[in-house]
Each structure stands twice: as structure tokens, then as C-alpha cells.
């Protein structure tokens, strides 16, 4: 398998070995004039992982992503994306990335299929045995649910359709790494659900690594293998939603009823508390509910902590 891949054009699209980092960021710094936006960001992304970048507005999410995409020069630190420094990234490196930005209004006079076919054609020479490029347009239209709009002028698409087209363009080159900047803004619940299925398909079937930003914590919890919380110019916390909530020394909330009365209690160690509860009251306990703090609570707490320590 590997040999057929290497027989292609030298160095093009040689997949990143399974355990090698797809993104490696060390002490990334960025300042605009005297204003420091990133003050030392560190993280790593592995193949097939979904990384979700969360953070308040102005925390530097877009800046971080733009540096990784090779669209912006960093002020300091070491960055490697697919084994290459984005500032030195050549066209063959570019061919292995997919980019979906917050707002595209481009190519409004083109038709959907026309544009996908045109842009896809740029990727054909970068095709490899394990990653045929480009993604066949019919299949792609099907995947993003735009088959019926194939002949529509892009200017006439609805907001949600336009967004799905942006995603289609982002993956037309069958990327190894896909950047998504707030991909589901303006999606109705059904479109959002379909988009989540697409993300799972990309990571499960094609081992695409995905880095996305969102303000939707529910979405972050659903999609992320790992969540990075960017605050105060650095990664304030990282981990799965579950790990994060533990990190916040999560008081778990326990609710129950006894003798028709409702009770609420917060405990650091929920299992022990519940065991004790049943030992004391046994069958009298009803409607038991144990809730670890939600991602939203965790997030708010982490961001507040990070902002506090930055001051």
C-alpha cells in the first residue's frame, strides 16, 4: 500500500503516519502591535481526531486557525501542520487541507456543480491511492444534500444551502485535515444533525482530522474528541467534555424525592453520597437524578478562572 503511494509524485500526499501529530503547536504567540492575542498556545492533534476550539469572542480562535491554515504569519513559536510549517507550505501541502471560513460570498454567479467541478479539478494531480482526489461531484452533492441544487446559481442558494456548499468546497479535495470556522451558524436542527453525521463520516471512514470552532456548546460536546478552551491568550483547559467537567472540581448535583418532598444536594463525590442516601432511606428514595456539571457550566467556570488569573 505504502509503496504505491510513494510511487506518485515525490512527497505529495504521503499520509501522516498513524501516531504522528497532524497539528503540533508549541508556544504559539501572536501580537497585533502592542496587543498580545496569543501568549503561548500549546496543543497537538492526532489523525482522525475532532478538536473543538472554544473561547469567548476575541480570545484568538480565528487567529489561531488562520495561522494553522497558512493565511497569517505568527509572531513566535513553533507550528507544524501535516509535518510542514504553514508559512512554508507549498501547493502540495495546500492540497491536503480543507478550509471552511465563517462567511463566504464568493463565486455568486457560478452554478453549484460548475464550481465544485472546477475547484475539484485543481486537486486531481494530488490524488493518491488511499486518498483519491477530487471527491466525485455527484457523491459530494449527495453527502452535503445539495443534489437538487446542482444547477442552481450560487447567489440564489438559501443561507443554509450556501453553508453546505462551503463545506462541500472545503472537502472537495478530500483533505487529510479540515478546518471549520463556526460551520453550523444558520443551520436548522435537521441540517445541523446532518452536518454532525457528515463530520462523523469524515473522521470514521476517511480518518480526516477536523479542527472546528463553535459557540454551540452542545455541538462541541457531541462532536469533539477533545475540547480546547482558549482564553486569556492561551489554552485554559483541554480534554473531552467529561474530563473537563472533572477538571473543574465538579460538584455533582443530586436530586431526589422522599415522602413527596424534593431534595437537591451538591457533592464532590456523588457515588458515595448516593450509596449513603440509599443506606439511610432505602425504598423511600424516588426520582433520583445525578447530573455532573454540564459543559456550559464547566466552560463558564473555566473561562472565568482564566480571565481572573490573566488580570
Amino acid at each position, binding site marked *: 500500500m505504502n509503496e504505491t503511494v510513494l510511487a506518485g509524485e515525490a512527497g505529495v500526499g504521503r499520509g501522516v503516519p498513524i501516531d504522528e501529530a497532524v497539528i503540533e503547536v508549541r508556544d504559539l504567540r501572536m501580537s497585533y502591535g502592542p496587543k498580545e492575542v496569543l501568549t503561548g498556545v500549546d496543543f497537538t492533534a492526532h489523525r482522525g481526531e475532532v478538536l473543538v476550539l472554544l473561547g469567548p469572542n476575541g480570545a484568538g480562535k*480565528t*487567529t489561531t*486557525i*488562520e495561522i494553522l*491554515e497558512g*493565511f*497569517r504569519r505568527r509572531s513566535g513559536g513553533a507550528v507544524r501542520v501535516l509535518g510542514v510549517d504553514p508559512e512554508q507550505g507549498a*501547493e*502540495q501541502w*495546500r*492540497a491536503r*487541507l480543507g*478550509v471552511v*471560513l*465563517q*462567511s*463566504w*460570498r*464568493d*463565486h*455568486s*454567479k*457560478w452554478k453549484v456543480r*460548475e464550481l465544485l467541478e*472546477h*475547484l475539484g*479539478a*485543481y*486537486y*486531481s*494531480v*494530488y490524488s493518491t491511492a488511499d486518498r483519491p482526489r477530487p471527491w466525485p461531484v455527484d457523491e459530494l452533492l449527495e453527502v452535503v444534500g445539495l443534489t437538487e441544487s446542482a444547477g442552481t446559481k450560487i447567489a440564489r442558494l438559501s443561507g443554509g444551502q450556501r453553508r453546505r456548499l462551503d463545506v462541500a*468546497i472545503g472537502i472537495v*479535495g478530500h483533505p487529510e485535515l479540515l478546518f471549520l*470556522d463556526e460551520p453550523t451558524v444558520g443551520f436548522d436542527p435537521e441540517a445541523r444533525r446532518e452536518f454532525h453525521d457528515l463530520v462523523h463520516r469524515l473522521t470514521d471512514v476517511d480518518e480526516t482530522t477536523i479542527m472546528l470552532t463553535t459557540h454551540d456548546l452542545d455541538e462541541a460536546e457531541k462532536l469533539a474528541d477533545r475540547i480546547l478552551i482558549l482564553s486569556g491568550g492561551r489554552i485554559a483547559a483541554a480534554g473531552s467534555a467529561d474530563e473537563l467537567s472533572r477538571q473543574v472540581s465538579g460538584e455533582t448535583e443530586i436530586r431526589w424525592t422522599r415522602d413527596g418532598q424534593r431534595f437537591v444536594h451538591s457533592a464532590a463525590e456523588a457515588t458515595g453520597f448516593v450509596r449513603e442516601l440509599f443506606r439511610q432511606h432505602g425504598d423511600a428514595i424516588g426520582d433520583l437524578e445525578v447530573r455532573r456539571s454540564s459543559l456550559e457550566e464547566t466552560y463558564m467556570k473555566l473561562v472565568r478562572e482564566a480571565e481572573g488569573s490573566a488580570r
Partner: protein
Amino acid sequence: MIRVVRLGLSRGLIELRQTVSSGTDLFGYFLPAVFLVIALIWMRDSTIPGTEFALGAHSLVGSMAMLIVISGLMSMMQYLTMDREDGTLLRAKATPNGMTGYLIGKIVLVAGVAVISCLFVLVPGLFLVDGLTLGADGLLVLLWLVPLAFLATMPLGAVLGALFENPRQASLMMLPIIGLTAVSGVFYPITALAGWVQGVAQVFPVYWLGLGLRSAFLPDALVAAELGGTWRHLETFGVLAAWSVAGLALAPGILRRMARRESGSAVAARRERAMTRMTV
């Protein structure tokens, strides 16, 4: 590389097809023809000074020089600023070899638009003026002259497009270009203008392109109405080539700088500014 050139060509042809199937765009190409027809009817009894030859033919050919220069400079500039504002350029940047394909596509589009605009004035003009000829010699002149004119104008148009912040600013360039056209003898022989104006006009490509086109489309006897009484092909080639070299020397660096600065937040910020301008 050949593959990218082919992609650029197909890109240009697709956009050319889009523009000729857009009513607004077609109207824009058609409008100069309407003005020209009115002018030709107005001046149907005038002759080129010192000859018995109708002035209309001179003006018709001159207007094509103007259209080619306006396409090469203005259209190129407008397309670039517009595409930067709506993110088309950033899309090209995000695609492997996309920038090269984009630029080739724009060259094809601008050249196509220039030819279409010229045909729009040439075809009705043929019915209104006498004396237009296009022999084998003339055709040969067009074969080097028109590509050279594109080469002299498009890279400069691209440079200006990269320097202007947005399409609204870029449209200010229309004024100097019209002014330049007015002194370049495209509608009325330059010999009628003051000596120093003639000197200024001969620095810029419009005059030379007009002269070259006249040498191709007008009878040889009319050379008498030109400066120095010759078609000056060598000088035409020299001046246009000098502009080409200047443009080609400037363009890559400036375009690269423009491309480097493109990013999602740059497009978003530009959009924001455009929106506030609209609502204020």
C-alpha cells in the same frame, strides 16, 4: 503547469459565458456602441483635416483603442477589487495552484470582454462609415498589436487592483483614464492638439494603440494625417513593450503581497466596512 493553464482557461471561459448571459453586463458592453452610433451620425459630414476621408472611420477605430485600454486597466482592476471583497480571491488562495488559475482566468475574461466590446462598436459602425478596410497586412498588425496592448494594460490594471482597497475607490481611476483618452487622439486627430499635449499623450499606451489600430483598419493614404506622416510601427511596439515590461516587473511582487494579506478575517473586516458604508 499546462494543467493549471488549462484550468485557468476553462475558468475564464466559464466567467465569459456568465457575463454574456447577464443582461446588466451586456448592457454595459452595448452602451458605448450606442454612444458611438450617435456620434457617428452627428459627424457624418466631417472629414479628417487635410483629407477627403470621413472622420467617422477615425473615431470608430479610436473608440476600439479606448475600449481595449479600459478593459485592460479598469476591468482588471475592478474584478480584482471585487473578488477580493467577496472572498473569491481567498478561495483561490485556499486551493492548490488556485491563484495561478485565477489570474489566467481573469486574463481570458478581460481579453474576451474587450473583444466583445470592440465587436459591439465595430459591427454597427461598419454600416455607418465608409472606408474601413482590413487586409492581410492589417490583420498581421492586429496579431501583435492587440496581445501587446493587453500585456501593456492588464498587469498594470492588476497592480492598481491590488493597491486599491475596494471597488468604490478603484472606480475613481476612471477619471484619469477618460482624461488620457481625450488627449490621445482617439476621437479626433491628435495633430489638432497643442504640442505639449501631444508629447504627454505619446508617453501612454492609448495613443499608440489607436495609431496601430488605424494603421490596420484605415487606408494607407491616411498616414498623411498622422504625426510625422508615418504609422511608426517600431515606436508603437517599443512604447507598448516598455509598458508591458514595467507592468510585468511590478505585478508579481505586488500581487504576491496582496495574496499574502488575504485571510478570512481580512475578508470579514472588509465586508463589515462595506456594510457600514451602505447603511450610513
